């Protein structure tokens, strides 16, 4: 075991290497590219046996990933944002093939407007695809989750591909100390992939990805995949325990931080939860009973673990780094549907949108969220969804708009 300073992208590449992946179909996109560059170097130098192939698009890349997995090898791939959406037809399609592999998504906001910086709108578009989905908060988690991801994907109870998400820039380009496990220990935790009958062999012809006629077989196979995804909760918990036994680190489906006696909790996903942890510590020092619930496993959704984590809490503030136009935060509706009608469910559920397109979330904003939530608990009335946005930011936007106006008029004045 060695400890190195690695970026989130570097940790992802190490995860794939330690998982002894055979095949990496690739396509470059910011902020993911460093992952495939690193892997390409390792394949070139012979440090990794197998093959990396650059396809001409993410649509083809995901097709090749699914097809290779359906042939019986261990596959890894990675993408971001627009690339994920360009491949979205195949995200849904290959999930139905039940051919397991792991794909890293380095999340980045979607156009329009075009941006390179992070939020979760891209990866949430894959939420209903059949891919299982795990969100990481640290570079260590990225490496660990890829190893866990293969166990989860390849388990015969699930047999579904897995997306491991890390936040663009905040994790992808941030160096943190990461423990790189011994490959022998990883081999024990993650044995070679046994494709069983999901493969192409001359002696055992098979048809995969076939069409059906009518809603009855369609419903049957779709629901089978759903049940397999649901079984993923149990499989995930087993894998997390085995991972802890092997490597001493535990990554629960739902991380509850200082929630034991909390009357208010933040609920979030991804790397910004480390900022929220710091805010929780501050608030605790001020003798406020605030905690943090971080959803790591988004699909399957760990309903029971969430209910346990928020039992006895008075108010929840969901902070969504995504925006479902015309509705609001996706995580907020997920939490609401998991808790509605539960006897011990917290009375107040507040929704905040923040961190879109790489915008920071400040400690002061988290303090304010806690105060708003407390107010809602006391008054029994939840405020409408709020965007975290300061007067200063709005002033800056007004300035840009004024400049744009001047720029537009300038040619008129010249002529």
């Amino acid at each position, binding site marked *: 075991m060695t400890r190195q300073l690695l970026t989130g992208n570097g940790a992802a590449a190490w995860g794939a290497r330690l998982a002894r992946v055979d095949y990496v179909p690739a396509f470059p996109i910011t902020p993911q590219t460093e992952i495939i560059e690193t892997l390409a170097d390792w394949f070139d130098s012979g440090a990794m046996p197998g093959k990396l192939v650059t396809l001409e698009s993410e649509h083809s890349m995901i097709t090749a990933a699914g097809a290779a997995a359906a042939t019986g090898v261990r596959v890894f791939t990675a993408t971001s944002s627009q690339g994920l959406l360009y491949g979205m037809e195949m995200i849904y399609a290959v999930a139905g093939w039940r051919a397991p592999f792991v794909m890293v998504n380095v999340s980045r906001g979607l156009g329009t407007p075009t941006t390179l910086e992070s939020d979760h709108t891209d990866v949430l578009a894959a939420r209903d695809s059949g891919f299982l989905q795990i969100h990481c908060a640290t570079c260590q988690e990225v490496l660990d989750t890829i190893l866990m991801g293969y166990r989860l994907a390849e388990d015969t109870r699930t047999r579904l591909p897995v997306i491991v998400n890390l936040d663009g820039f905040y994790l992808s380009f941030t160096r943190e100390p990461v423990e790189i496990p011994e490959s022998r220990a990883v081999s024990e935790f993650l044995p070679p992939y046994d494709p069983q009958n999901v493969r192409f062999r*001359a002696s055992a012809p098979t*048809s995969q990805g076939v069409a059906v006629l009518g809603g009855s077989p369609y419903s049957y196979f779709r629901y089978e995949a759903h049940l397999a995804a649901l079984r993923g909760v149990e499989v995930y918990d087993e894998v997390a325990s085995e991972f802890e036994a092997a490597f001493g680190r535990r990554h629960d489906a739902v991380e509850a931080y200082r929630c034991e006696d909390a009357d208010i909790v933040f609920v979030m996903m991804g790397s910004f939860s480390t900022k929220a942890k710091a805010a929780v510590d501050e608030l605790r020092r001020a003798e406020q009973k605030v905690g943090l619930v971080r959803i790591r496993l988004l699909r399957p959704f760990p309903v029971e673990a969430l209910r346990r984590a928020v039992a006895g809490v008075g108010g929840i503030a969901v902070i969504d780094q995504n925006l479902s136009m015309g509705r609001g935060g996706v995580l907020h509706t997920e939490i609401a549907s998991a808790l509605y009608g539960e006897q011990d469910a917290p009375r107040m559920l507040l929704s905040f949108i923040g961190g879109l397109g790489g915008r920071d979330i400040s400690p002061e904003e988290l303090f304010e969220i806690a105060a708003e939530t407390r107010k809602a608990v006391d008054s029994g009335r939840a405020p409408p969804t709020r965007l975290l946005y300061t007067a200063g930011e709005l002033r800056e936007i007004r300035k840009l708009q004024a400049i744009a106006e001047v720029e537009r008029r300038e040619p008129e004045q010249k002529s």
Partner: protein
Amino acid sequence: MSETLFTRMKDLPSTHLLGAGTPMCAGCGGLSALHEIYDVLGPKTVFVNAAGCMTLLSVYPFTPFRGSWLYTSMASAPAGAQGVRDALDILVEQERMPEEEDLEVVVLTGDGSAYGMGLSSTSSAIERGLDFLYICYDNEGYGNTGHQASGATPHAAKTSTSAGPRGFAGYKKDLFSIWAAHEPAYVATVIGSEPLDLARKVEKAKSLTGPRLIIALAPCPTGWEYEPRESIDIGRLAVKTGVWPLKEYESGTVTHTIVPSPRLPVAEYLQRQGRFAHLFQPARNDALLAALQARVDAYWDQV
């Protein structure tokens, strides 16, 4: 062509490998070509399919193939072939699978995918030197959705999106040349109504490695509007009039494998099909017929 098993019609396989009872239309020219192709290729194959008529060959739980099948999407069958080929290569190289378990990877798409949505992934597969065989059944329109105009639709043909008096305004894309410009191992045109020529080309393609691509013109009773029993005749006329040149590309050279001489007038091919009826009724459109003939003549003048 040298060293072929197929010198006479008698040499063609007499046992047919592809099962009967598929949902293809009666008289499907694509299916007859596929029958002949599959007899030569054999079941040690995995067909990687793109959305099109033939997607309905394998509908759960039935398949006419004795070998394997993977449906992908309309745009990315060559990328699916890449994944399967690479995975098989890795397994053989690392001795995790005996070589006799290996398969020939065959992409099977219609013209809608081959000429349009799938062209980018095909181009890239050729550029990467992928060892695969690509079969395009070309019925000159989006057949499975009711025959709308595609990149393969010939000039003046009536389709369900070009039903006006002038038919389709565009011209059939020269996919053979587009593919050949990539300098792959092999490109050929075939048609089910010329089984000996087809068998020799599939045989040659099978013997080569690298990207090998074959376009089969697929007379289509429902889309071209003729009686199913006429499919073979119409296919023969496509060749005899010079409308569908049978040729192959190898090592930088294009060779015509059947040169129709003398060529029959193009009108003899067109007037058998309802999609060209507006060229003959209510009045014969001599100017357009002459223009269509001139295009075919100009092609053969440069051969």
